[in-house]
Structures are given as C-alpha cells and as structure tokens.
C-alpha cells in the first residue's frame, strides 16, 4: 500500500527498537516522498544535560543507520536530521514546519503509563499541539 499524496513526511525516532519498527512500518508506504528521520536531543535549556550532546548525537546516528537498514525498497528518499530543543514535541513541530513536511508519521511505542509519566509522553503532547496531520502507523506484524 502506498500513500502517494505526501511529498515530505517527518518520522521521529527515539530508540533503536523504535527505529527498526518504524523503518519496517514506513517501508514502501510513501512512494517518491522524502522521508526525514529526525531525532531530538532534549536540552535542559541552561542546566547540564543528563547525557552529553555529542553522546546523543552519536546515538542518533546509530538510530538513523538502523532506520535505513529496515527501510526497504520504495522510491522514497531518506534524509536524517538531528534537532535540539527543550521540549521534544514542540521541537518536532518546528522541524516539521521548517522542512515543510505534510505529515508527521510514527508508530506507537507501546510504552506503559508509568514510563509515559516519567518521560513526559511526547506522543500525547504532539497530538494535542500539532498543526499538521499526524499519521499513526500500525506495527508490521507479518514478518
């Protein structure tokens, strides 16, 4: 199934598993589109971060590799972008605006309420604040 109405979509990824699952899910779904995989380095905005910036940039590059490995065929172009911001959801929306993305695409992470509480539930904030379509894809199960 391809969804050819999109020319540019933004795909936020957060962890290695996420990158793999999302890579599978978006494969050959966006024909001829530009897929921008984005990782947000969360900043404390004036206090030392828990993990160094360089460390998370390296981490992000690893995620992009995983994403590309899992992304199969299709005529889509993949681009990567590391973004920085104190609020992950807000930063994603800013990047989407900057890249003129028509949609933000992600696969639900299946996190427990407890973890969402600890990490601030980016997905919910994104849904509440979004100014453009957000496409939620199912996990690929027929491997």
């Amino acid at each position: 199934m391809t969804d050819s109405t999109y020319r540019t979509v933004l795909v936020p990824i957060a962890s290695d598993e996420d990158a793999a699952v999302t890579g599978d899910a978006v494969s050959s779904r966006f024909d001829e589109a530009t897929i921008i995989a984005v990782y947000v380095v969360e900043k404390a905005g004036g206090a030392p971060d828990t993990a160094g910036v360089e460390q998370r940039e390296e981490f992000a590059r690893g995620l992009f590799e995983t994403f590309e490995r899992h992304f199969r065929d299709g005529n889509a172009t993949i681009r990567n972008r590391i973004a920085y911001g104190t609020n992950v959801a807000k930063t994603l929306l800013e990047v989407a605006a900057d890249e003129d993305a028509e949609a933000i695409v992600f696969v639900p992470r299946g996190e427990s309420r407890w973890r969402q509480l600890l990490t601030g539930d980016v997905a919910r904030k994104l849904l509440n604040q979004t100014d453009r379509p957000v496409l939620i894809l199912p996990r690929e199960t027929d491997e």
Partner: protein
Amino acid sequence: MSDEELAKDLGLISALAVGIGTMVGAGIFVLPGVAAAEAGPAVVLSFLIGGCIAMVNAFSVSELGTAMPKAGGAYYYINRGLGPLFGSISGMGDWMGLAFASAFYCIGFGGYLTTLLSGVVVPLPVVGTVDLLPSIVLGPLVLSDIQMGALLAGIVFVGVNYIGAKETGGVQTAIVTLLLGILTIFAIVGFFSFDWGTVTADGLTPEGTTAILPGTALVFVSYLGYAKIATIGEELKNPGRNLPIAIIGSVAIVMVIYSILVGLMVGIIPYDSISESTPMSDVAEIIFEGNLGVIGVTSITLAALLATASSANASILASARINFAMGRDKIVTDWLNEIHPTFATPYRSIALTGLMILFFIAALGSDLEVLAKAASVLHLVVYALINVALVVFREADVPEYDPDFTVPFYPITPILGFGLSLGLIYFMDTIEIALGLSFVVGAIVWYGVYARDKTDREGALSNYILSRSDELPDAAVSAANVASPSGESQYKVVVPVSNPRTESDLLSLASVFAKANDGIVQAVHIVEVPDQTPLSEGSEHMRQIDTESQQLMERVRESTDTMDVPVDVRTIVSHRAFEEVFDVARREKADKVVMGWGPGRPWSAGRAERPLDELAHDLPCDFLVFHDRGLETDRVLVPTAGGPDSDLSAEVARYLRDQLGSEITLLYAVDGDDEAAAGERFLTEWGAEHGLEDAAIRIDTSGDVEGAIEGAAREHSLIIMGATERGLLSRLVRGSIAYDVVHDVECSVLMAERPTSRSVRERLFGLRRDE
C-alpha cells in the same frame, strides 16, 4: 535559533552556577567543623591556600578547555596530550575521584537530613516505633543514621539521573542564587555575633602553623567543582570567553565565600566545638537566636541539603561525561555508554557510578575525612597531569592547539600547578594516598590488560617523541613505544585537497573506500604558500587561511554524499604541497591516499624539492590518483595484466561494486585471435582470485593495449588502472607518463599504485631513514 545555538545552551550565568553549585555544598556546609578542629582558627588560611592552588590549576584548565571544549574535560585533554596511558590514569582518577566526592557530599547531605529528621519516629506494628533514619548493624558493618540518610540520598540522586528527570536551566540557577542569598543573610546576621575574642582565645594557631597545610589537604575537596565546567565544555555558549570566566570566576567567588563564612564561624563558636557533621546548623542556632529562630536554622539546613545535593548531582553527571569520552577512545567498553531507549540517559554509566558511590558511603562513610581526602588525592593527580599536558601541547607544536585563553606567566603557571598539586598530596594521610594511588595503579593495569589493545589514540607527547626519535634519548623513545596503544588502528583514507570547491568527487570516492572498511576519511586541505611567507604558528595570516579553509571544507563536506562515513577536515599550510601529501600520509598512518591530478593542483606542477625517486618510490601506503572528468561509477573498466598493482585495482573495483553497485568489466589485451581463449582463461581466473567472478570479461585481440583501452573506454564511465611498473607517481610528476591513454580517453581514470614490498618492509622496520 540555529541548531548550534540550541545545542550549546549554557550561558555564562549557568556555567557559573554549575561551578559554584558544585563547590559550595562541600566546603561550607560539611567541612568547617572537622577542619577547624584540625587547624584552629587559622583554618581560614587553609581555605585560602586551597583556593590558591585551585586557582593556579583553574588557569590551566581554562586554557585547555578553550582549546578543546569537549565532553570529558580533564580526561580528554590528558589523553590527547599525554596519550592513552595517562589518559586512562586521568579518566579513572577523575571518575573515582568524583565517586568519592559524591559519597562525601551524600554524607554531608545525610548529616543535615538527620538533623532535620532527628526525633521523627515511624510507628510500626509489632516492633513499636523506629527512627525514620535508624542505625543498622549488619555483621561487622555498622551503618550510622547519617550513613543511612546518605545512602537514601545517593539512591535518589542516582535514580534521578538514571531516569533523566528534567531539570530546567532556571532551576539550577535559582538554587544557586537562593543559596548565595541565604549565605549572605547568614554572613550579615553572623557578623553581629562575631567575637574576636573567640577567635584568639587560644591564639590563632593553637594546633601550630604546621597544621595549616594538612588543613588545606582536608578542605581542598571544597574546590573540586570548577573542573566540572570543563567536562560540559561542549555545551557552553561561546566557550572561548565563557569557559575561562566561569572556571576562574567560580573559584574566586567560592574562595571569598569560604573565607568570610569560615572566618565568621571561628569567631562565633570556639574552633574546637564546631559540629563535625552539621557545622552550619549549629552556627545558625546561635546567630539566629532571638531574631529569626527556627526559620533561620531550618532555612540554613535546607540550604545545606540543596547545596550538597547539587554537588552530588553535578558530580554524577560529570562522571557519565568522562565515561563517554573514555568509551569513545575505547579505554572503556562501549557497553557502559549505551543510551537508555526511553530515558535517553547513559544509564549504565550512571548506575555503575551510583553503585560505587553507595559502596563508598557504606564502607568508608563513617570517616568523612577519608572520603574527602581520597577524592582530593585523585583529583590532584589529575590536575598535576593537566599541567603536564598543557606544557606538552605548547611545546610539541600541535597544529590544532589554538586556545582562546592562555595561562599568564607560562611556563611558570603550569609548573607551579604541577608542583602545588603533587605537593598537597604530601599532606594527606597514608590511607588516603594509598587509596588514591591504588586506583592509579589499577588504571595502569587496566590500560595494560584491556585498553592498550583497543585504543588507537596517540597523544601529542608520544607523537612528539617518536617523530624526533633521532634527537631524543633512546630511553624516552622506547618508553613512548611501550606506552603506545597497540589497538587495531582505524582504517583511514586521506584525501589531499588543493581546491575545496572542486574536490567533491574525490571525497565521495574516498568515502566509498572508507565505508567498505568501516573507516574514516581525512580530508586535508593543503594550502601552498610562497617560500617568503613564514609558516609561523598562530600568525594573523595563518589564522585567516585556516578559517577560510575550514569554511570551504565544511561546505564541501556538507554538499558531498559521504555515505555517513566520518569525515575529518583539517588544513595544512606548506611551502611544498607535493611533499606534504606524502608527509601527511605518513603522519596520519593512512591506509589509502586518494588524490586528484590535473591543472589547478599545486602538486601537479611538480615543484618537489626532495629527489622525486625518494618520494615516489617509497610510497607510505596505497595511492590512488584520480584524473577527474566527473565521477560516474555505474560502468567501470579494469584493464589488467596481473601483478601487484592490479591487485589494488581489483580491490578498488570490489569496493565500487559492493558499495555503489557498479558494473565491472575486466579487459585484457592479447596478440591475435589465437590467443583469445588463453586470454579469456586468464581473465576468468584472475577475476575469481580477486573476488570479481561476476564481472564481465572483455578480450581485445588487436595487440594494441592503449588502443584497446581507448576503445573500451567509450562504453565505460570510469577506468581503474594499475601502474604496470614502479614509479607511476614519479613519472606523473615529471610529466613523462607513458600512459597517453589517460589523456586520450574521455572518461575519468583512477590510477592505482601500491607500495613495493621492499618499502613496506622498510616501513615496518623503520629502516627508511637516511637512505
């Protein structure tokens, strides 16, 4: 705001807050009691002397920090400067030092927590009532209520960092401002309770003047915060300006605070009766008596909790940064530096550091002094090494070393810093020195057993010694050799670039080779300047060249598809571009050099001064010379007649096929049709031997090698040609290349030359010198 500005979001105030917040917790809230008992009222001098030692080192840290604003701070500088052996010592030393310091801060926190909660009991069924912070006896291990409080605090601090609970910039600065506010009120109110008679009751130095320096050894832990600013140097805005101001400024500010407050304390309570675990609360009880009462005491106690907590917190963060920097150099395993998938924190590093902190609290927490001094010993060893690294960077003429801030009175300042740091260790007790040194020895063993085989990072010092092995004493050279890392060094493709605007193709090509070997590309912009232009380091002219070049190279790097291969960019200014190509290859221990050939490149003009044969007959590594007519790699022609250089052509062809999906055609020229079958057999075998079974085979029977290549070239986009005899490069330089074909064909040509076995052997055994 640009990404750069967003990534670097620590301004001067935040950086100062980190420095002050880390330091103030220990010095003023925990140590005055113990230290005053040891040194008498002259303990103020102990604090001042400690501050001066910290200040001298702060200058050195500032210079190195502005030259390399990188995660890891001291470890990073020492590893770059003195190599991975000392890097291991400083990394482990800093890490353990921070763990000791954190344990110490937690104990301080525990003391105040106990004060706050003393008498609070928890009713439990069956048992009756239990203190909220009970003492526990576990076999030989006795945990006091303070230790229990400290353990609790440690678990919370580590947990918070493990989860990465969000701390916003405002909070950190607000805490420090609040602290400074409370301390100011404390000082003003305290001034009225100050009595000079209390200070001089037993004379200023009742414990003797000889007690002052041991006092300094004890309180030095109060100054360990400034170097934390350096470990987060990568996140600082405008580090060239803010880093030195924050480091030197925070030392100066806490020095003043310590002196005033400790001075007041010994004038309020006799030096030998100040509480050893919660001095500030005790003093607060006296000075606030009658005016602010409970509020004053409670706010001081809360301030103490905040201060010790922020010290512990900053130390745990800093140790994760050091772990990361060590992991990047492969001195510790990458496993330790994994990022948590949900929390985005270096959770393993934090957990391990946390376990050590808890262990130190439980095992050594009953003696505050041991924790404080062990932390100081380890940090002092690191500070001593920092000063040595600074001198090495200055003296070894490291081209990349360009600090914005330079220490005054060089070389006196670093020498002084080195001497004072080691000197202060002398005033520690045997147990702390032994504890500290056992970690140093542990680090050396760790380097020998584990890291030496993994890391490939050499320091400026060993490069300096090994590159001058003729002039320096044998002992130094062999010592440098022994300490050198033996790790499999990374595959490196060096690209000498003359004009960054036109060399994008070269960079792409180099990336293909690097990618195939999991290696890196090092693009070196060689700027040739006339002999009259001096190459003096740091002159305005050189700096200008350097800045322009960096900008150009950065642009090329961005516009080139380098397949996610790490591309390192640097600039070299030289009088002799051609020689420089070889020097760079040798210095960088390149595996391959990919260079362009043709007009516009200084080396194409061939103004080499040294005998050409010496240069080009003795290649330091594989050389690939690209005659650029556009990089199209879809149809690649490999003419071959066997031989070592065609091995290299085959290798390159394989990379192009594997990485870019190029179609390969092998070409072999024979005399007449009757040899065609034999030719085909040869090519099939050759292809199989070189992993090119899938390549198309083309036999030319005209007997005219050059004609054959020219003919086949029309259907191909790139020709890879091995040098059939030695000295391809030297003939290129002389302009007497036998292959007119290079000029006649219309597609790009990549010429490959592999060093002769003779020069490889010579390279290995270092016999190359003075031929």
